[in-house]
């Protein structure tokens, strides 16, 4: 029996994994729900284990090895490296830890690009202090810089600071500065098999005043040279050494060409896989979970269900939610979610601070995005 271990699964990913027809073993962080995650009245494995802790390798060695598992996967950021470590320990297929670490750590990713595909990168530095940071920014001929955690996700802690304001940053040990590239941002959803990279779709994103993503649309509204992007993605993935599995690569288009912002060896978040599935017919979730055991790959001729798809998010003032009103959506809506009364809304600093979202399908990306944004604007959250 093929046994697939999934680290940090959502209920949706657990269902996707079970839909592949293999035996699924869930490893969830302690304190996470158990009852809704298991299949009742049958053998259904779930282990409460902190897979980000130092003790995880011993769990792999003493428990997963005994279970004779076939592969370990994760589609969550914090589960990617533990999955890679587990696969390496057990001699199973999967991206090596070094590759995952190179993608998680933006400084390592930039160093790899500098050596193998410098045209895809931007100026960067890991300064020890504000003075060193300011010198680096000036050396790029810039007066602003992006300051971000080396291993951050979901836009958390990402700031665009004028060079004079770098002095306000006091702790530099885990920070990276990057040259700021103006203009719209995109993400490339790709899948690699044996070192061959396939660009599945490109999503165009919208952000608010900061860097928190407030909408995505597939395909992009902006006219793009898809072949050039595919070539750029191939060069990038080769440079970081990713040979198998999904990648979600965020990039911008500078006058001199594509610039990679960051990348992860997983599917994109924010419901992007749903947009991609509608527009391409390819189920990235199933493929991402099942590829190490030869399952979940798309049909030779996948069947798209929409020409375009978009998701947009709502925001609200910080405070405790008192009232929520939802828009009257139509048949083009895929799903709608919102916070509930009693939930706490924080200041918008990361994707987790958004208060609702709506995904729609449409005949073209412009109208799909407009409708999604319109519906999202009608998610009214009173705090």
């Amino acid at each position, binding site marked *: 029996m093929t046994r697939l271990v999934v680290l940090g699964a959502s209920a949706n990913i657990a269902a996707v994994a079970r839909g592949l027809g293999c035996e699924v073993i869930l490893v969830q962080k*302690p*304190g*996470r*729900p*158990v*009852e809704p995650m*298991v*299949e*009742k*009245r*049958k*053998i*259904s*494995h*779930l*282990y*409460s284990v902190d897979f980000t802790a130092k*003790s995880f390798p*011993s*769990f792999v060695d*003493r*428990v997963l090895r*005994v*279970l004779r598992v076939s592969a370990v996967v994760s589609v969550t950021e914090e589960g990617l490296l533990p999955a890679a470590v587990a696969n390496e320990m057990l001699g199973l297929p999967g991206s090596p830890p070094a590759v995952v670490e190179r993608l998680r750590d933006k400084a390592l990713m930039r160093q790899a690009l500098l050596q193998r595909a410098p045209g895809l990168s931007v100026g960067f530095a890991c300064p020890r202090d504000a003075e060193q940071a300011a010198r680096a920014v000036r050396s790029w001929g810039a007066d602003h810089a992006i300051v971000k955690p080396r291993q951050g996700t979901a836009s958390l802690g990402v700031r665009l600071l004028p060079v004079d304001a770098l002095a306000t940053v006091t702790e530099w040990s885990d920070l990276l500065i990057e040259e700021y590239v103006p203009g719209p941002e995109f993400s490339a959803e790709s899948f690699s098999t044996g070192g061959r990279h396939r660009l599945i779709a490109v999503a165009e994103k919208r952000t608010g005043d900061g860097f928190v993503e407030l909408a995505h649309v597939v395909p992009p509204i902006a006219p793009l040279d898809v072949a050039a992007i595919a070539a750029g993605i191939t060069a990038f993935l080769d440079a970081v050494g990713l040979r198998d599995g999904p990648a979600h690569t965020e990039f911008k288009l500078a006058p001199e060409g594509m610039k990679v912002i960051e990348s992860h060896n997983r599917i994109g978040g924010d419901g992007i896989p749903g947009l991609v599935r509608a527009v391409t017919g390819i189920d990235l979730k199933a493929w991402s979970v099942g590829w190490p055991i030869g399952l979940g790959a798309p049909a030779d001729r996948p069947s798209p269900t929409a020409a375009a798809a978009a998701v947009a998010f709502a925001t609200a003032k910080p405070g405790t939610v008192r009232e929520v009103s939802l828009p009257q959506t139509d048949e083009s809506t895929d799903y709608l979610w919102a916070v509930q009364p009693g939930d706490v809304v924080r200041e918008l600093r990361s994707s987790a601070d958004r208060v609702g979202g709506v995904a729609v399908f449409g005949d073209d990306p412009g109208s799909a995005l407009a409708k999604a944004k319109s519906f999202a604007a009608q998610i009214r959250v009173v705090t």
Partner: protein
Amino acid sequence: MLILNRHAHSVLFDGERCLLPLDRIEPHLVTHTWAGVDRHDPRVFPHTSTVNVFSDEEVEAVCSWIIEEHGVRHVIALHEKAILMAARLRSKFGLPGIGLPTATVFRDKLRMKQAAQAAGLSVPAYAPVDSEVDLWRADWSRGPKVLKPRLGLGSEGVAVVADLDDALHRWRGMGQTPGVEQMQIEEFVSGAMYHCDAVVEQGRVTFAAVSEYVARPGDFAAGGMGGSLHIATGELRERILRLNDRVIGALGLPGAITHLEVFHTARDELVFLEIAARPGGGGIDRYLMRAYGGLNIFEAAIRLEVGMAAFDAGSVSLVDRSAWGVLGFYPGGTGAGRGGISPERFAEFGIAEHKHNPTSGGGPGGGPRHCTDYIDRYVVNASDRESFLKQTEEIRAAYAQGRKAEIQVPHHIATVDHL
């Protein structure tokens, strides 16, 4: 504390109250998905694993990892099938409680009888069965015998065999099953069956209650009924209590909850059948709680395991001398629907509690898998034994009638463990 659970999750609660001393321990729960995580709260049990409880290799691997990784100091098992594994883990890691040698005596019916016999107790004539030759060797002139797994429980896999041909037929049938357990054969003892549920602390019995089986556990069948009735007084009760003391002394038990079964023959003899080092199942705990003013044998088992006294007050006493007992109905059978008694009639029948178990069944013909695999269980009270037995027949009839009428028990009743 590592809790190795093979009961429903609700066994760890009395209503909404968790039986674990959560102020003293960090629980690590290893359980299953046959009601093992029903109404599971991750805030109470943040460390929970659902495993293949049928695989000793897997259970031992994950439990060993938890014990070492989290510095677990106590292992508890409340279900007979988990007793040996818990003991193995205690022995392996030098943890307090019943170790493997003692647990084996309490699990292996053959070794248990050898120990009891050595202490001068009366036991049914018995012998191990490792091959057909052992069946041929048995003295069939003495009447029917019982063929059973040495490590069995809940009367699972037990067969009463009339003669050698019958025994050979059963044996060959079992032989076709891979991994068939070690078996034994023993003399069939006719007579009423009683059980004695006790608390043993520091080698001494500090509490014991005697009950009479309403039906022999070995007779469990689809559509049938089982249960027990508490015996509050009487000379027979005293004799069973003394027997219980002797058995526990003979088998050597430092501290645990025990469940002893004994025959009372037509010749007024007490014949020891077996004893388990865990609380009795099938709702015994629920009526003992009524009779003994809040005594909870599952909670006592947990407390003993972590080195606490079995009871807060140090001891418990009989507070209600009326007849308390439990009646359980098995799934399957010829009736239509799942049967049941309308809650409006509970008072009429002296029903104090009802529990519906949607995970029961799975045995032959959709029937029970073991003798406490009840689909509906009622804790019943009557003024005395005779009234209890009369009510038993009335409840049996009403349940059968409900089965025919396919009474739909309201959802809130069906999911509430204790009224």
